[in-house]
C-alpha cells in the first residue's frame, strides 16, 4: 500500500546536535520497528527526515519541502525553539499538524491550531526546582545561565515564577555557549554574601564546566542544574564534581529505579532497552521527547483512522492519558502540551548515578 509520509526536521548536526542526534535516532528506530510490525493501518510509514544543522533558515526551507514536495501528513521535529518558530508558519498555513520537540513555552502559548509539543516547558522545570529549594528552606540564590536559547528562555521563565516561592535571585551571571571556563562568573557568585544555593539553567557542555569550576572554587552551596543536562553524559563530563547536584528530570533517567507499579515503568524500560541496544549510547531525555512526539502522532492517526491532516490534528488534541517516556500527557484545545509538574522527578547525583530525592 501507499506509505504514510511523516516529516521531520531536526538539528542532528550543529550546536544542538546532542539534542537532535538522539531525536533523529529515536525517530528512525521507532518507524523501523513500526513498519516491522506491519505499519500503520496496514500501510508502511515513511519518515522523511532532514537535518537543519540548527539553522532556522534551513529549517524553514525543509519545512516547505516537507509540505510542498514530500506531501507529508504530519510533522514531528524542530529541535530548538528557534528552528521550531521558523517552521510554524509553514505548517499553520498548510494546516498540517506539527509536533515540536523544543522547549520554550511560546510554542504552545498562545495555542496555535496545528502546533503541539512534547518536552516540558522550562517554566515547569523552574517551578519544580523552586519547590525543592523551598522545601529545603532556601530563600536566596545565585543564578548562572547560558546565553543560548535554552538558557535564556529558562532564565526568563525562572525569573517570572521565582517570586511565587519566596525566593530571591541575589546574584546573576551568564556564559556563552562555547565558553571553556566559568570561574570568573562563579567567583563573583562565590563572593556574594548570603547565598544558599546556585541554579544553572543551561544545556550542552556549559553546565558540565560550570559544575567542575564550582568544585574547583570550593563552593559548597547546593547546585541545581536543569533538565537540559538530563543525560548520563553530564555525569561523565562533570566527573566527581557532579556529586550532589540536583535537577528536575523525567522518569526515563531513572528507569531501572522506578517502582514496579510506576505507570511509566514499562514504557521507559522498553524505550531505554531498544534505544541503548540499537545505538550503544545511553538514553537521554531528548530522545524521549522524540519518542513521545512520534508515538502521540502515530496513536492519533490510529484513532483518527485517517491520514487527513485535519483529522490527525483533532485526534492529537484529544490525546488523553498517554503514558510516555517523558510523562503523562493529556491534551485539550487549550493545552497543546498536556504535561504537568508531576512528570518531573527531582534527582540528585550520588555515586555517579541519578537518584530520586523523593519517593512517590
Amino acid at each position, binding site marked *: 500500500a501507499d506509505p504514510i509520509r511523516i516529516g521531520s526536521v531536526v538539528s*542532528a*548536526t550543529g550546536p544542538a546536535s546532542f539534542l537532535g542526534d538522539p531525536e533523529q535516532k529515536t525517530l528512525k528506530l521507532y518507524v523501523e520497528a513500526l513498519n516491522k510490525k506491519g505499519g500503520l493501518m496496514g500501510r508502511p510509514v515513511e519518515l522523511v*527526515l*532532514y*537535518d537543519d544543522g*540548527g*539553522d*532556522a*533558515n*534551513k529549517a*524553514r*526551507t*525543509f519545512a*516547505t*519541502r516537507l*509540505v*510542498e*514536495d514530500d506531501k507529508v501528513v504530519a510533522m514531528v521535529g524542530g529541535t*530548538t*525553539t*528557534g528552528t521550531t*518558530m*521558523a517552521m*510554524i*508558519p509553514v505548517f499553520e498555513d498548510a494546516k498540517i499538524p506539527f509536533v515540536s520537540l523544543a522547549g*520554550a513555552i*511560546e510554542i504552545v502559548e498562545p495555542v496555535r491550531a496545528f502546533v503541539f509539543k512534547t518536552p516540558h516547558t522550562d517554566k515547569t522545570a523552574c517551578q519544580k526546582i523552586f519547590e525543592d529549594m523551598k522545601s529545603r528552606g532556601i530563600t536566596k540564590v545565585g543564578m548562572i545561565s547560558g*546565553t*543560548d*536559547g535554552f538558557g*535564556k*528562555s529558562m532564565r*526568563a521563565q525562572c525569573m517570572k515564577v521565582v517570586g511565587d516561592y519566596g525566593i530571591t535571585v541575589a546574584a546573576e551571571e551568564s556564559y556563552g555557549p562555547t565558553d571553556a571556563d566559568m570561574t570568573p562568573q562563579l567567583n563573583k557568585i562565590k563572593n556574594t554574601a548570603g547565598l544558599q544555593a546556585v541554579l544553572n539553567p543551561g544545556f550542552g557542555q556549559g553546565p558540565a564546566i560550570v559544575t567542575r569550576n564550582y568544585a574547583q572554587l570550593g563552593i559548597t552551596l547546593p547546585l541545581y542544574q536543569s533538565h537540559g543536562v538530563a543525560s548520563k553524559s553530564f555525569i561523565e563530563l562533570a566527573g566527581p564534581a557532579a556529586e550532589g547536584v540536583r535537577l528536575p528530570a523525567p522518569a526515563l533517567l531513572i528507569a531501572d529505579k522506578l517502582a514496579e507499579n510506576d505507570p511509566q515503568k514499562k514504557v521507559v524500560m522498553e524505550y531505554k532497552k531498544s534505544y541503548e541496544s540499537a545505538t550503544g549510547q545511553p538514553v537521554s531525555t531528548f530522545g524521549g521527547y522524540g519518542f513521545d512526539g512520534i508515538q502521540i502522532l502515530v496513536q492519533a492517526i490510529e484513532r483518527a483512522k485517517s491520514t487527513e491532516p485535519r483529522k490527525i490534528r483533532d485526534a492529537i488534541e484529544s490525546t488523553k492519558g498517554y503514558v510516555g517516556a517523558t510523562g503523562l500527557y493529556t491534551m485539550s484545545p487549550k493545552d497543546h502540551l498536556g504535561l504537568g509538574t508531576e512528570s518531573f522527578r527531582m534527582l540528585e547525583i550520588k555515586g555517579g548515578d541519578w537518584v530520586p530525592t523523593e519517593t512517590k
Partner: protein
Amino acid sequence: MLKRVLSSRLAVLVLLAAIIAVVPVLAPSSFYLRVAALVWIFALAALGLTILTGYAGQVSLGHAGFLGIGAYAVAVGPAKLGLDPLLSLLLGAVLCGLVAYAVGRPILRLKGYYLAIATLGFGLIVALVLTSESAVTGGPDGMQVPRMVLFGWRVSGVSTWYWITGGALLVGALLALNIQASPSGRALRALHDSEVAAAGVGVDVAKKKLAAFVLSAVFAGVAGSLLALMNGFITPDAAGFMHSIELVAMVIIGGLGSVVGAVVGAAFLVVLPQALTVLQEYEQAVLGLLIMVFMILLPAGIVPSLRRLLLERAA
C-alpha cells in the same frame, strides 16, 4: 567575439533574467521556488562581497553582521517601533551603510588577514548584541517578522517573494556591473593590485575602499531584510560567523570578482545541501569533499575557470 559576448554587461543581465524567468516554469513545486528565492537573496549578499573582495581585494569575514542588521531592521522596526516594513527595509539599508561607514573608517586601514580578523570581530559583536538584547530582538530564539503590506496588499506567498527577490538580484547585478565598468570600478581593481600606484595616479584609496565597504554592507543588509521578510521569522544566527564564511565561500567558489560567479556560488551553497540530504549522515562529509574538488579543479572559481576553458577551446 566570444570574449566580447562573455564579458558584456547586457549579456550577463539577459542571462540572469532568463534564468529567473525560466525557473518557475520548470519548478515542480513551490518548494523549488523557495530554494531559488534563497539563491537570489544570498547571491545579492554575495554580490556585495564581489564588489568589496572581488574588485577591491578587501576581505570581510563579518558580512553576515550586515545581513543580520538588515534582517532585524524589518523585524524590530514594525514590531517594536511601529514603522512601515518598507520604510524599515530602507532604514535598515541606511543603517547598514552608516555602521559600515563608522566601522570601515578605522579598520579598512588594516590589510589582508588583519582586516579579516577585524571584520570577523565586528560580525561577532553584531551577533552577540542580537543574541543578548532579548528585550528588543527576542534573544537566541529569534523573533517574528510582521508581514509586509504594500499599498494595502499583504505581501506573502512563495511565488511573490520569488519575483521580488529575483528582481532585487537583477538590480543588484546591474549595479555591480555598472561599478565594474566605471572609473570607480577601475580604481577599486587598481588598488587591489597596488595601493601605492593607485594613490600615485590620484585614487583616494581610503575613500574608495570605504565606498566599496559601505556599498557591500548595503547589499548584505537588503538581502537580510528580504530574507527576514520572506521567512517571517529571524534568529540571530543569520548574523553568525558561519554565515559570514558562507558568503565569502560563495564568492570564491563562484569566482572572485565575477557577477555571474556570485550567483553560481550562492546556488552552489544553497542548492547543494538540499540535494545532499539524501545522503543523510554523509551529507557534511560529501559537501566538504565537493567544495575541495571544485576548488582544486577550478582554482579560479567556477565561472572564471570555465570561461577560460571556453575561450581556450574557441581559440
